[in-house]
């Protein structure tokens, strides 16, 4: 396989993961302006739930995915009720501090229960290996990843664009006070979106183990990537997150492949340039 295609393929698969892990944050940030730095802790939770079910209880990999989704969603509802709810009207600093406190606690908790080693993951045989198509060979797991992410993207965009619920979400993102004035229960809407978004992060976390690995620092390492996706894509924009995640995934792979000496300098530079050029992100409205 020519290296360019391999790099593109890997970058897209990586971007799909980043998209799953960040789209929830983008929508909730757009709606409530709540800076939730603990978003990747939900992804990490999903990852650990999947690993535990597989290794300790012998569940098949595919069956652990919906459980990872549900676990992350449930945890997010609890945290939202107990903590986040009180801070919607607080300043960004308070929100940042509260959620980074939660990140620290989650990292220490994961280290306490699972240790600091990388978690082993055993993919079922039908997801291992690669297939050859038109002279290029594709890793099956990455194809599977891209497939799942594409299905979710289509469902998400259809929900946001074509359902009543989606219309309410868009209204609340555009102008929260006006939406309230029209009788939309923004708090309920937000709780649902928050749970869905965190669930998607949990699913992303479970899918990420086989590709990115899983250890307690996951919640902080990928937080930075998720924040880049959200701020470059624009708050509250599903399509923006998708484009930004693809951009980031491919440019990160390209950077590692072509100019390894520069490490991650390339993506940080791209992020800063985009934010300076358009502070609200590529697809942001504000």
């Amino acid at each position, binding site marked *: 396989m020519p290296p360019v295609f391999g790099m593109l393929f890997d970058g897209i698969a990586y971007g799909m993961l980043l998209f799953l892990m960040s789209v929830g944050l983008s929508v909730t940030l757009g709606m409530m302006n709540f800076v939730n730095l603990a978003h990747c802790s939900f992804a990490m939770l999903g990852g650990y739930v999947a690993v535990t079910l597989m290794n300790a209880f012998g569940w098949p990999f595919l069956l652990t995915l919906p459980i990872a989704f549900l676990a992350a969603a449930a945890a997010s509802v609890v945290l939202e009720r107990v903590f986040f709810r009180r801070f919607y009207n607080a300043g960004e600093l308070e929100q940042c501090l509260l959620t980074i406190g939660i990140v620290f606690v989650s990292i220490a908790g994961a280290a306490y229960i699972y240790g600091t080693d990388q978690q082993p993951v055993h993919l079922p045989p039908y997801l291992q290996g690669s297939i050859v198509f038109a002279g290029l060979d594709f890793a099956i797991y990455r194809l599977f990843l891209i497939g799942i992410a594409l299905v979710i993207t289509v469902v998400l965009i259809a929900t946001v664009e074509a359902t009543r619920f989606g219309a309410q979400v868009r209204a609340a993102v555009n102008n929260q006070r006006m939406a309230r004035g029209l009788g939309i229960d923004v708090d309920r809407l937000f709780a649902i979106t928050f749970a869905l978004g965190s669930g998607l992060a949990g699913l992303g976390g479970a899918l990420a183990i086989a590709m990115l690995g899983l250890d307690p620092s996951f919640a902080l390492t990928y937080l930075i990537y998720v924040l880049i996706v959200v*701020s470059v894509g624009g708050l509250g924009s599903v399509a923006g997150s998708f484009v930004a995640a693809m951009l980031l995934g491919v440019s990160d792979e390209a950077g590692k492949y072509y100019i390894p000496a520069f490490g991650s300098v390339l993506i*940080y530079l791209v992020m800063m340039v985009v934010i300076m050029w358009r502070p*609200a992100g590529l697809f942001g409205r504000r």
Partner: protein
Amino acid sequence: MSSATIDAAFGPRQFLRAQNRWRWTEIAFWLATLLPFVLTPDYLVLASQIAITGLFALSLDLILGFSGIISLGHAAYFGMGAYTAGLLSVWGWGEPLTGLLAAGVTAGLFGYLTSFIIARFRHLALIMITLGIGLLLQEAANSASFITGGFDGLQGIHTWPILNRFDFDLYGRTAYSYALVVLFLTFLVARRIIHSPFGLSLRGIRENGQRMPAIGAATRAHIRTIYTIAAVMAGIAGALLAQTTETVSLETLGFQRSADVLVMLILGGTGRLYGGPIGAIVYMVARDQFSGLNPQYWYFWIGLLLIAVVMFMPDGILGGLALALRRLTPRRAKD
């Protein structure tokens, strides 16, 4: 006429002068900083690190507490100063005072350049840009390992005796005196800045960034100035660390350091000159006491502490103390 005299009594000049007056608690605080020499002479190395970190936290307070600029990448300037002083020494110039000066100038220059970006943004974009500056500089230092030593850190730093007389000893006696004197002098500068008309307009910007231009304040120019000053101070703090420990690692530029100093400042109380130093004392003494603890678990407690402070004590230790004091003495006028 009488109303004019009453107004004058509470006018801005009188207000600033009253703010500028030294309180006995402040004098007590600075006298207490001398106690480690007598009470805990075995802990002077730790005390010097606390003084350095306190200076770093104070510099963050200038932009975050007083001007409302949230920064997740303030360690960039700290590390810049540390590497400047360290590299000067590696290249054969280990004189500490000029090293400090050079570090302050380099960090300040970098701060001045970046302040043009900082002043243009607010909210999430600002957070991401400060984060990006920090990450970018750390990656750059990592990539330029032929200068910085990369992941292994900078080797071979030797700091000459201060003023050719006071050599750095193993017990940290010189290190602590040196750090304390620099902290005190910088603190005086910060105190003067905060209790000036310029300091007042910074607080105005923090409270309402849109209304300040309407009353004629040059908001962006003010932000650029204070950001540069804070960068100089952070650079000096970094240089102090490099000179007293004679090592510089990539960690001085890292996100962890930016986050730690933020935690200390929040713990002590933002927007109060003593918040940074007091937060640094509490945080670092606690970390020293729990040093047997795995660092992973240390962050568990820090996380809990952060959540608790944000939920129950939003103004930090000093804010809590002030509130308690006000409740105990209800008839005393609000200060």
